[in-house]
């Protein structure tokens, strides 16, 4: 199933150049020459040798099913195949890539399929680590403005201090009663469940309602995404190479 979608533009500078020696998209390369040094983050380049004697049309015919997925459009012109994907489902074997160019070149050792693929998912994962580090910093800053309930109570208790009135003392007693643990139900006693302990003075109540936000989860997720990026950059490179190799050789 295919759907008509726009081809992604502009193209990033091609690593191999056109057959006649000219670049396929000089404007982008001229505008952003330094991009070449960082776009490896989300650009995957590689090559797969064709079987001896395999013609260009035969090679592209074998790759054709990969570009007949939902949300994928492609164009074949001679030795080049250009594709673009939009809203590709997870079941698409190349769903991690959003656009790319595949070109067959004649080399000294025979024909070679060179590819240059672009993945927004890789870029997104790369950005997630600093994003979650930012969230951690934001949590720390906001935490300074948000004192936990126990701290607030302790501060107000200190200031009230000596001038405690009998009514306030009664309220304190009621609060202390409230904090006292509820006795276990006889059924639980019979079954041997541990008795609840009396909470220590100044101890926070369990549950996140009474806790200051912690930056730890954000740090953990930043580490997870940094690791996932490294895994993904290696894994997806390897997987797509294997996919092209399998498709071309038909094994």
């Amino acid at each position, binding site marked *: 199933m295919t759907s008509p979608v726009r081809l992604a533009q502009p193209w990033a500078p091609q690593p191999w150049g056109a057959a006649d020696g000219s670049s396929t998209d000089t404007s982008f390369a001229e505008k952003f020459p330094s991009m070449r040094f960082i776009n490896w983050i989300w650009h995957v380049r590689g090559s797969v040798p064709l079987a001896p004697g395999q013609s260009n049309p035969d090679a592209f015919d074998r790759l054709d099913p990969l570009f007949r997925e939902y949300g994928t459009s492609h164009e074949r012109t001679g030795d080049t195949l250009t594709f673009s994907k939009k809203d590709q*489902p997870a079941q698409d074997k190349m769903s991690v890539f959003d656009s790319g160019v595949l070109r067959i070149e004649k080399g000294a050792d025979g024909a070679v399929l060179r590819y240059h693929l672009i993945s927004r998912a890789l870029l997104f994962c790369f950005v997630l680590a600093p994003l979650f580090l930012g969230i951690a910093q934001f949590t720390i800053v906001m935490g300074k403005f948000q004192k936990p309930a126990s701290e607030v109570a302790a501060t107000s208790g200190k200031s009230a201090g000596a001038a405690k009135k009998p009514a306030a003392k009664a309220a304190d007693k009621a609060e202390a009663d409230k904090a006292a643990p*509820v006795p276990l139900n006889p059924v*639980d006693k019979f079954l041997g469940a541990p008795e609840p302990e009396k909470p220590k003075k100044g101890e926070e109540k369990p*549950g996140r309602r009474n806790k200051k936000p912690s930056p730890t989860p954000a740090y953990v997720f930043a580490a*997870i995404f940094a690791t996932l990026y490294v895994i993904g950059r290696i894994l997806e490179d390897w997987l797509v190479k294997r996919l092209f190799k399998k498709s071309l050789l038909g094994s």
Partner: protein
Amino acid sequence: MDGVRVGNRVVGTQSPVTIGWENIPKVEGGPVKQFIFTWFQPTVLFALLAFWYYAPNSIAVTSTAIGIGIGFRVLLLGLEWAYPRFDSWHLTWKELVTDLFYVGLGYTLLRFVDSYIGSDVMIKAIQHNFHLEAFKWFTGLPLLVQAFLIAFIFDFVQYWMHRGMHNWYPLWLPHSVHHYITQLNINKGAVGNPVELFLIGLGIGGFFDFVPRAFLLAGTLGLAVGSYQHINVRFNSPRWWRYVFNTTEHHSLHHSQDFESTRSNYSGTFIFIDRMFGTCIDGEAELLGMEGGRRMSIREQMTYPFTEGWKTLREKFGRPSVAVPAE
């Protein structure tokens, strides 16, 4: 497509679904594998309940629950990898990153927002204004009864919120994003527009001050039952289990590409709530999603309820475009 009649409605006219437990495939393999995949779910549930019931106070704390929760999810991810229900639901790197991004949002920003305008604030306000000390006797109930009440109240509210999302357009807009997922995996429950994730978390299970251990027991019910909603593993769940609890089968039908099937199985943990209100359908589906399986990008997942809502408002209240007659 002919579809299958279930009560007053016909399901499966737009996309294939399997209806009836007798038609759902069983786990294939030797007797050991069959035994494991039949008794895994009940064993884990009862083992965890026993653990939280008898654990000393020093161990029965939230950090232990978080550790067990993470460990259990890693185990389930491993099961998904080794024994997938459908190969087409195989967890790819891109899907894992997307899922974990939403899990991360849930643990950080959403939790933060919740502490200011979400359920935490609602609970405090209600406790303050309604003198819930009158319900203090709740804490004297047996622990397992308290745990069930917490889980049931939360799920009951979630059932109606979820059903409301499928029946009222302003609520459907944020929820629809979650229905664009094309496969089920352990963390897919976290995927959705943040507005919906915020709304679905507004449970009132925590209004009453139950004994802390009861909360840990209730959390176990969510972990050892609710986790299977979005899992890509086939289990031969015992008959009583699938009668009481929500299963992947039920939830896959809810995510089917068939519209009528999506209007069933709204509960999160207890499928008997759906049975009570006549919205339960026992069955499963493999083809999931909306618009024939279009997968939304994360950018669209974030903006869709607003852009789509704005489009609808303009269509309804905007100035109609005047056609200029050709000369």
